[in-house]
Every structure is written in structure tokens, then in C-alpha cells.
């Protein structure tokens, strides 16, 4: 058995390496920066631009029908043109250019270009020599533009972490699961039967936790709704006025992030101590021990459902428009739940042996919440920080959740696979660590 697990692990690592080489190549194939490396890199700040026909809005510049940006004295081969800007539009641009100082802009030397979003910034491919250029925003009436500079031929190397997760980690996880099913296939039925037998225990324990939590306060279930609402009001008062983040419906934005993050925290913190607290039982009766972290996660899930009522209430109060995509909200919740269960399993197993993990993890979580865009908008981060954030699983879940409800966006395949990759990775790790340790729990409790 050990030999076979070892072989799977080695094969898993090989698959991981091969697929990551492939997915790095895949992402650099559509990586506009690769070719730009051959050309001169130039940054043009707003002070060197000539802006025509813009209105000053309260939130940056507002485009009109005939808005243009003039760039003089470019005098270089332009492969890519990157806008360090936030443009609330995905319409095409029309670019006129000249190849000579004396030349005027003409229809003959113009092209239309679409934005490619690379690392959250719009980039267009020009692929020609320009002496000067005029960028026309067609059909962009009344959209906001906040621009700080335009960068030509930027070649900062990019490893697209999302693609790496989606096309490398995810297939590896699928392979490991398939291999495990083949190896443990015979026992699988047995495990399922044992689990079925203990389903009533899980529901009893969850009920007991709910009773204990809500029996002792008069407001009872209402607290689970009021608590996040009050927190959101405080954070809203502090942050939206002091920092002036440019987020519409900031209170909903914050509430969605914090509810999801708190769900993860409650799951993992609850699981972490669940095995130790169940020591009395574990010493006396045989019970599959994963029941305890699992039960804590279910308990946290139910609590989160109450908090979601708070989000709904806030959406109604603020009158935020919601599209049908919001109905998909259980998907990110599911990803988060699986991830949290996995992390909870790891923590609960290790905490039995090393009790101080409890304290370490508490500190870790308070750092983690700042590495997740819960309270601030993603756009305030530098590119480097943003790339680091893409390593953070909670970033994907929070973004997914908000995208569906607040912006009516349904994330694409690679985003979904990245979410699933993290969930599966932690679930598999959690199960492996837990299974390896569980026989020794009783000796250490």
C-alpha cells in the first residue's frame, strides 16, 4: 500500500511539473509581453499627453463622443501599449499614427484595437513604428477614465498564477483523486457505509452546537444577522469616509467579503479544537474522528447562511441592482466550504500534537484578512502585490462571490478551475494528514 501511494505521489509531482511547464508556455503564448522585450520600453505620464474633449468628472475624467489622447514624440517601434488606467468600458479604440514628424493623422494610417486585460490592466497590440499617435475613444460616451500613464512595450515578466492553478494544479488533483479511487476503490464502499451510519451523529452534534449557541441569548438567531450588519456599519463609517475608496455600495462590498472570510475562519478555528474537545468521546467509543471537524464546518455553514440574510438585507436597503447571476452564489460558498474543511482537517490533526498552533493560527488569520481584498479594493495594490495575492485561495472565492452578486459577472473556466484546484488541494492534503495522524490522537488527548 505504501509503495503504491509513493508511486502516485511521484507521478502526481511529475504531472504537476509537466503541466506547469505547459501552462506557463500557454500563458506566455498569449502573453503580450514576450515580444515587447525586443523593443524600447517607454512610460508616458499624463503630463506628456494632450487630452482633448474630456469632462472633469468627480471620479476622474469622463469621455465624450470625440475624446482623444495625443501622444507626441513617441519615435519608437510600438508593440504593446498598456494603459495604467481604469476604463469602465470594453469598447474598441481607434488609433491614428504617423511615421514622420511632418505627417498628419490620416484614415490610411489608423487601426482599431480591442483591449486585452493583462494583470487587470488594459493592453492593446499596435505592432508598428509610430512617431506620434492619437487615440480615439469611439462610442465611449459617459464612461469614466482614470489614467496615470501609458506604458509602451512593457516587458515585466508575468507568470499567470490563475492559469497555473487552473491548468496545472487542477489536473494534478484530478489525477490523484482518480488514482486514489482506483487504489481504495474496494474500501470506498466500506467508508461510505461507515459515514452513513454516523450521519445522525453529525446532525445531532450540529443541533447541539446550535442549541448551545442560541439558547442562552434572548435575541437568539437574530444575533447572527445583526452581528455582521453592525460590524459592516462600523467599517463603513470608518473606511468609506477616511480612506474614500472608490467602491460603489462599499457596505455591501465589505459585507460580502467579511461574511465569506468569517465563514472560513469559523470553520477552521472550530475544526482546529474539535478533536481535542471531543477527547472524552474519542477515549471511550470508536467514532470516525473526521466527524468532528466536519461537524464544525457544517455548523459554521449554517451560521453563515444567517449572515447571508444580512447581505440580502443590505442589498435591499442600499437598493443595489442585482442580476440573475447572483443566483449562482452557492458555487463560491461550496468552493470555500471544501477548502475550509480541508484546512480544518489539517489544523485539527496537528493541534492535537502541538497545542500552540492555536495561537499561531490566530495571528496568521489576522494577517490573512489583510492579504485578501475584504476591506479594500483590489485596485489600490501594486502589480507585484496583486500577483502575490493571486496565491491566496481566499482571493479567488471572495472575488467570485462579489463578481456574481455585485457586478453580474460569471467567472470563466480558468477562474473556476483555479478555485476548484485550491479546494481539492486542501481537501486531499487534509484527508491525507488526518488519516496519517488519527490513530495517534487518542494517545495525545
Amino acid at each position: 500500500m505504501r509503495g503504491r501511494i509513493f508511486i502516485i505521489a511521484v507521478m502526481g509531482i511529475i504531472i504537476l511539473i509537466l503541466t506547469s511547464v505547459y501552462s506557463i508556455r500557454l500563458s506566455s503564448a498569449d502573453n503580450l509581453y514576450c515580444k515587447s522585450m525586443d523593443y524600447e520600453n517607454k512610460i508616458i505620464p499624463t503630463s506628456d499627453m494632450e487630452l482633448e474633449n474630456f469632462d472633469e468628472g468627480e471620479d476622474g475624467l469622463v469621455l465624450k463622443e470625440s475624446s482623444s489622447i495625443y501622444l507626441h514624440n513617441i519615435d519608437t517601434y510600438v508593440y504593446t501599449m498598456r494603459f495604467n488606467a481604469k476604463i469602465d468600458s470594453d469598447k474598441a479604440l481607434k488609433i491614428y499614427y504617423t511615421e514622420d514628424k511632418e505627417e498628419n493623422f490620416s484614415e490610411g494610417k489608423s487601426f482599431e484595437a480591442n483591449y486585452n486585460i493583462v494583470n487587470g490592466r488594459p493592453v492593446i497590440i499596435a505592432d508598428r513604428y509610430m512617431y506620434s499617435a492619437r487615440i480615439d475613444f469611439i462610442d465611449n460616451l459617459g464612461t469614466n477614465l482614470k489614467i496615470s500613464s501609458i506604458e509602451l512595450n512593457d516587458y515585466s515578466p508575468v507568470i499567470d498564477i490563475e492559469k497555473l492553478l487552473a491548468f496545472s494544479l487542477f489536473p494534478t488533483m484530478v489525477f490523484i483523486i482518480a488514482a486514489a479511487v482506483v487504489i481504495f476503490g474496494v474500501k470506498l464502499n466500506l467508508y461510505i457505509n461507515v459515514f452513513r451510519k454516523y450521519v445522525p451523529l453529525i446532525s445531532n452534534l450540529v443541533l447541539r452546537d446550535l442549541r448551545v449557541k442560541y439558547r442562552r441569548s434572548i435575541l437568539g438567531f437574530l444575533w447572527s444577522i445583526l452581528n455582521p450588519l453592525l460590524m459592516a456599519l462600523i467599517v463603513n463609517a470608518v473606511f468609506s469616509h477616511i480612506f474614500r475608496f472608490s467602491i460603489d455600495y462599499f457596505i455591501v462590498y465589505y459585507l460580502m467579503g467579511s461574511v465569506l472570510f468569517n465563514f472560513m475562519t469559523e470553520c477552521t478555528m472550530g475544526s482546529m479544537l474539535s478533536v481535542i474537545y471531543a477527547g472524552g468521546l474519542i477515549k471511550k467509543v470508536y467514532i470516525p474522528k473526521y466527524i468532528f471537524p466536519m461537524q464544525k464546518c457544517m455548523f459554521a455553514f449554517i451560521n453563515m447562511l444567517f449572515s447571508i440574510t444580512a447581505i440580502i438585507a443590505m442589498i435591499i436597503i442600499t437598493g443595489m441592482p442585482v442580476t440573475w447571476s447572483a443566483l449562482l452564489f452557492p458555487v463560491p460558498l461550496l468552493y470555500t466550504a471544501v477548502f475550509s474543511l480541508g484546512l480544518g482537517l489539517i489544523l485539527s490533526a496537528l493541534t492535537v500534537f502541538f497545542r500552540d498552533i492555536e495561537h499561531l493560527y490566530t495571528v496568521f488569520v489576522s494577517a490573512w484578512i489583510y492579504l485578501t481584498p475584504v476591506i479594500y479594493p483590489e485596485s489600490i495594490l501594486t502589480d507585484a502585490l496583486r500577483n502575490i495575492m493571486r496565491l491566496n485561495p481566499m482571493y479567488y472565492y471572495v472575488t467570485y462571490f462579489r463578481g456574481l452578486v455585485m457586478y453580474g459577472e460569471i467567472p470563466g473556466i480558468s477562474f473556476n478551475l483555479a478555485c476548484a484546484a485550491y479546494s481539492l488541494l486542501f481537501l486531499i492534503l487534509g484527508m491525507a494528514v488526518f488519516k496519517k495522524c488519527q490513530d495517534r490522537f487518542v494517545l495525545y488527548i
Partner: protein
Amino acid sequence: MSAVISVDHVVMNFRKNKEKVDSLKEYVLKSILRKLSFDTFTALNDVSFEVEQGEVMGIVGLNGSGKSTLLKIISGILKPTEGRVSVNGTVSPLIELGAGFDFDLTAEENVYLNGSVLGYSKKEMEEKLPEIIEFSELSEFMNVPIKNFSSGMVARLGFAIATITRPEILIVDEILAVGDFQFQKKCEERINEMMSGGTTVIIVSHSIDQIKRLCDRVIWLENGRIRMEGACEEVCLAYENQGV
């Protein structure tokens, strides 16, 4: 007759940490300073036996001879360091009565909770509830939180739940010592009744009389080894006469 429980060359070692290391900080410090050391303590050493269906097996031995460890291994709570244990059938372990009772909940709520700990569904427990109430003689107290119960009442409730579900294998550790003689008698009757229904029973007790009354076969453990195994009378006699 087939062996329901077979214990095959079981060895159980415990680590006796000189100083208990239970934090990451200490673990790291001590492994750097190379101060991590463990003594092992062998609680069971090469124990093998089989129990057949319907048999009542007694285990006797002095304190620290490994009786409870053996029961915990059979009921799956502990994993043996070496050797194999195979158990065919549902086990209802009575290592301690009322395992999993929540003292804030009422007796009735605890019946369902404890039932689910032993792996029984709510529906099964609902069917058995009247019988449990009758056997434990607690009908007036079913809606009282069991923190207000006396230890005898808790024991009665625990025994009633554990035995009502007719497990195929019943493991009893020293619990028949609780309660008054009337209840003890009732428990013995229940065990006898179960035996005639084909349940396999393993009993640990310091009361030789009880062992003699109930058991077919007895194992005498001494310092983690089987000193003697055989018919009840024979082993009990030898056990009683040791050191004389």
C-alpha cells in the same frame, strides 16, 4: 462456530515522554538541542486469543495488567502497535457508561445523542425509547437535564441505551460495579438475556464472583501477557490462589 473476535499477536507500546512535549515551540527547541527522548512502555505483549459467537469471555488481572488497553483495542479506540485484531459485528463498547452524554441536555435528548454516538439512527432510538425508560426506571426524569442526575441514574441510563440496541458484541469494563445491588442484578439478567440471544460478551471485572456467574471462558492477564487462558472455574481458582 466461528471466531467473532480474533486477536492476533497484539503488541501495544505507549510512549512515555519524560517531559511531555505538546507545543511546536518546545518541539523545535528540543529537537535543536537534541533533548527529545522517549521511553516506551509495553502495555500488551504478544497477546493472542479468539472469542467465538455467543461466548462470554472474562478478563481478569491486577491493576495495570493491560485489561482496559485490550478492551480499547478490541473496540477500535486504540490501534495496536503490532499485530492484528479483527472483529466481525457491531460493537457496543461500555468502557465507560454514558460516553458522549452532554450534561446540559435532558435525559431524552441524551438518549438520541448517545444512540447516534453508538451509530444508531433517530428512528431506531425512537422505537426503543419506551424500553429504555422502562429499564432505567427514569420515566419521571426524562425531561430533566442529566447534570441534576445522581451517578447511579446516569449509569442506569447509559447501560439501558448501550444494551437496548442488541449489539452483536458487547464489551463491558468494570461498569457493573456502579449502582445498587438490585440494579446490578438487573444488568446481569440483561446480559444473560443477551447471551441467550447470541450476543458475544467480553467482561472485565475485579469481582471474581461476577466473572464466575457470567463467563464461559476467562483470560488472566499479567504485565501485558496472557498468564492463563481456559475454562472459567479453573482460571478463577488459579487467579484467586496466586501469591498464597
